[in-house]
């Protein structure tokens, strides 16, 4: 049976914030250290750290130490899984409605 073990709500919750979405967009181009991540935004480093913590908890990014720096990089698997679910759900409804269309054509 289906178990809701996949933290979709965590992922979608993380994506609900525009700054976090922007951070993810930028990370697609390559990894950044924390200062580089924070640079374009008009908020404190602490605020950015909070965003990064949320994204890390959702397994959307990972952080690792490189000498004195913290390097932030994207975990593309997680995003792909979330959008995969949406696509499959859309496909399910497309099928349903395609069948409904067929029935509508047959019924007089």
């Amino acid at each position, binding site marked *: 049976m289906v178990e809701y073990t996949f933290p979709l*709500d965590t992922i979608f919750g993380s994506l609900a914030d525009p700054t976090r979405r922007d951070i993810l967009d930028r990370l697609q181009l390559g990894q950044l250290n924390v200062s580089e991540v924070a640079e374009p935004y008009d908020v404190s480093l602490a605020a950015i750290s909070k965003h990064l913590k949320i994204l890390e908890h959702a397994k959307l990014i990972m952080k690792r130490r490189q000498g004195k720096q913290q390097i932030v990089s994207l975990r593309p698997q997680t995003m792909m899984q979330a959008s995969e*679910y949406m696509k499959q759900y859309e496909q399910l409804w497309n099928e*349903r*409605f395609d069948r409904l*269309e067929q029935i*509508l054509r047959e019924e007089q």
Partner: protein
Amino acid sequence: MNMANKTKITASPGGREVIIEREFDAPIDKLWRAYTEPDLYIRWMGPYGLTGKIDAWEMKPGGKYGYTHTAPDGQSFSFVGYRHEVVPQERITETFEWLGLPGHISLNTAKLEDIGGGRTKVTALAVFQTPEDRDGMIASGMEKGVVEGQERLDELLKKL
């Protein structure tokens, strides 16, 4: 097949609802029949590869409905709910619950609109109690034999 009639799904991040929209080349009364007559309903609602059976069917406020989908391996999924509002040719509002996860009940509305030219727009709204329930419903769509859907569609198209 009219590619302009594709299904549109809206589910905003962190939200509790799903909106499903589609336009059909058929008048409202036909869509109403497809939503209210059990032998028609079970033919399109079930996912591909599963057999559908109506367990209960009352189409009036307070009425109970229920159906079961059974997979070839014998696994079954039963759904149940109660109609709250039935406005003929227009709208059905009901509760919806998967018996495999009791207590996670959603409020669903199916709305039919005449969009002219003998065509109808269907808008289905499902409101869940938590974002987890909403996302769980979306994730469970994958489990129901979606992969074979394309073959089934091809089958149907050959009959046209």
